[in-house]
């Protein structure tokens, strides 16, 4: 296991812009994250959260700016299996004819040979990952027969099996049961202690306060970024959500 230098940046995004055929989705966005940091990504629908993720994974090209992952280009980060993406439940075809095992094994594809034949180490990594998300009893269950929470855990297991140092999670807590929510939050603490870097998008204010060291508020560009305690203020949230007060968005804060 390589030693982690906690002073080096895992993610460095400098003034990045993304546009789709001339339509700007994200502009002048900056983000810097170190190992062991958990950052919440908060914004309205269409504020560019998914675009931000897509830029970091290299799924869309940035039109301006610079992204360094572990000090390298996005391309080498892909080759190094540095980033894992955990999609929203809505973002995947739950009727696709594959099992939990198959999905988690996909986390290993990037480090296999061209025929994607699993080696002993791949099989072990998949087994371990499935155990960590408590799905061992469902190892050969088709994903269509899983609950929303179980499906979320399957994709989390895929990210674990990939052994990525950076986890990007799109709405990890939406549509999951209490048990899954508890398990995911426990895993977050473990990931943090392992020195992984986590960027998660969420609509839930409580989750931001509970897990996130840092918060990135965006609305096409960065509205505010910093320590959650300093930045996650009602004023900033109101600006992020286009003038709507946080009370009407999330209900009165306790």
């Amino acid at each position, binding site marked *: 296991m390589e030693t982690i230098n906690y002073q080096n940046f895992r993610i460095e995004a400098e003034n990045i812009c993304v546009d789709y055929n001339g339509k700007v989705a994200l502009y002048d966005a900056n983000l810097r994250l170190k190992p062991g940091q958990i950052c919440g990504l908060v914004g309205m629908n269409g504020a560019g959260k998914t675009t931000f993720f897509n830029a970091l994974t290299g799924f869309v090209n940035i039109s301006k700016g610079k992204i360094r992952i572990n000090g390298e280009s996005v391309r080498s980060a892909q080759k190094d299996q540095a980033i894992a*993406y955990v999609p929203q439940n809505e973002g995947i075809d739950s009727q696709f004819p594959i099992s939990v095992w198959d999905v988690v094994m996909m986390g290993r594809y990037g480090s296999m040979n061209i025929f*994607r034949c699993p080696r002993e180490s791949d099989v072990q990594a998949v087994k371990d990952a499935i155990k960590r998300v408590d799905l061992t009893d469902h190892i050969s269950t088709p994903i269509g027969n899983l609950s929303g929470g179980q499906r979320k855990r399957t994709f989390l297991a895929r990210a674990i099996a990939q052994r990525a140092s950076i986890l990007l999670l799109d709405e990890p807590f939406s549509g999951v049961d209490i048990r899954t929510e508890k398990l995911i939050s426990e895993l977050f603490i473990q990931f943090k202690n392992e020195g992984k870097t986590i960027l998660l998008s969420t609509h839930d204010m409580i989750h931001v306060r509970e897990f996130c060291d840092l918060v990135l508020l965006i609305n096409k560009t960065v509205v505010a970024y910093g320590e959650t305690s300093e930045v996650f203020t009602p004023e900033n949230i109101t600006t992020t959500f286009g003038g709507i007060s946080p009370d009407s968005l999330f209900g009165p804060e306790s």
Partner: protein
Amino acid sequence: MELCSFLTLDSFIKDPLTHDFMRKALLMSSLVAAVCGFLSSYLTLKGWALMGDAVSHSVMPGVVVAYALGLPFSLGAFIFGVGSVALIGFIKQKSRVKEDTVIGLVFTGFFALGIVLVSKIKSNIDLHSILFGSPLGISLSDVKQTIFISLLVVILLSIFRKDLMLYCFDPRHAKTVGINVFFLHYLLLTCLSLAAVVGLQSVGIILVVAMLITPGATAYLLTDKFDNMTVISVLSAIISSLIGIYVSFWFDLETGGSIVLAQTFIFLFAFLFAPRYGIFKLKKLFVGYK
């Protein structure tokens, strides 16, 4: 005379095999069906049914031009097949017209161009065999070409089987772990064009899309495992081809139509009686309601 001879199942199956053209048709159609069936799993899961329709119709002018220039018709078909997809992508990107409209617009345009070309170019192109297929009248050079293309597609699909599955399921993850998604996209398109080319010999341009989607749809209703889906898809495609050709032989029916109808009936059977996803859930009939 015919009625007497197919009183026994034995002669129903064996008699057509005494004809050289029937043996060739059965073999070639099975091969073509296997290729299309293999690809079919991917197309149905990727949601490319309409794309399959577009590509298969768009190859028409390519086939005509190739015939006129004395080139292998697969080459012309391939160029126009991939070209149509590129054009669809281009128009979609540069205009506000919705994708399904663009697809419909482009492939009918290409198809119309093909029909016009056939009427203009003086040659011995048999419009009927292009439109409706002619598995019984397949020539030797066509046989060689079909075998070559079929093997090529099967090898490509076999090598990239798992990557293509991942690409259909979660392209974003594929990209994130450094897999070349751009390559896989065009690989699938290439295989689609090639399969359309060989498929059109069996059932013709108009119906070839059925070869590319029906077996996959049938298999999708019967299993929850990707590998099983591929096997079922290939088998159902081959069986449909054999049934179609036999039935067309004995009852003197259009062969291409018979093959596709056989596929449709197998799909309907799965739709009604598939153990888990059928309307009547065959399992329940045997096991009883819980």
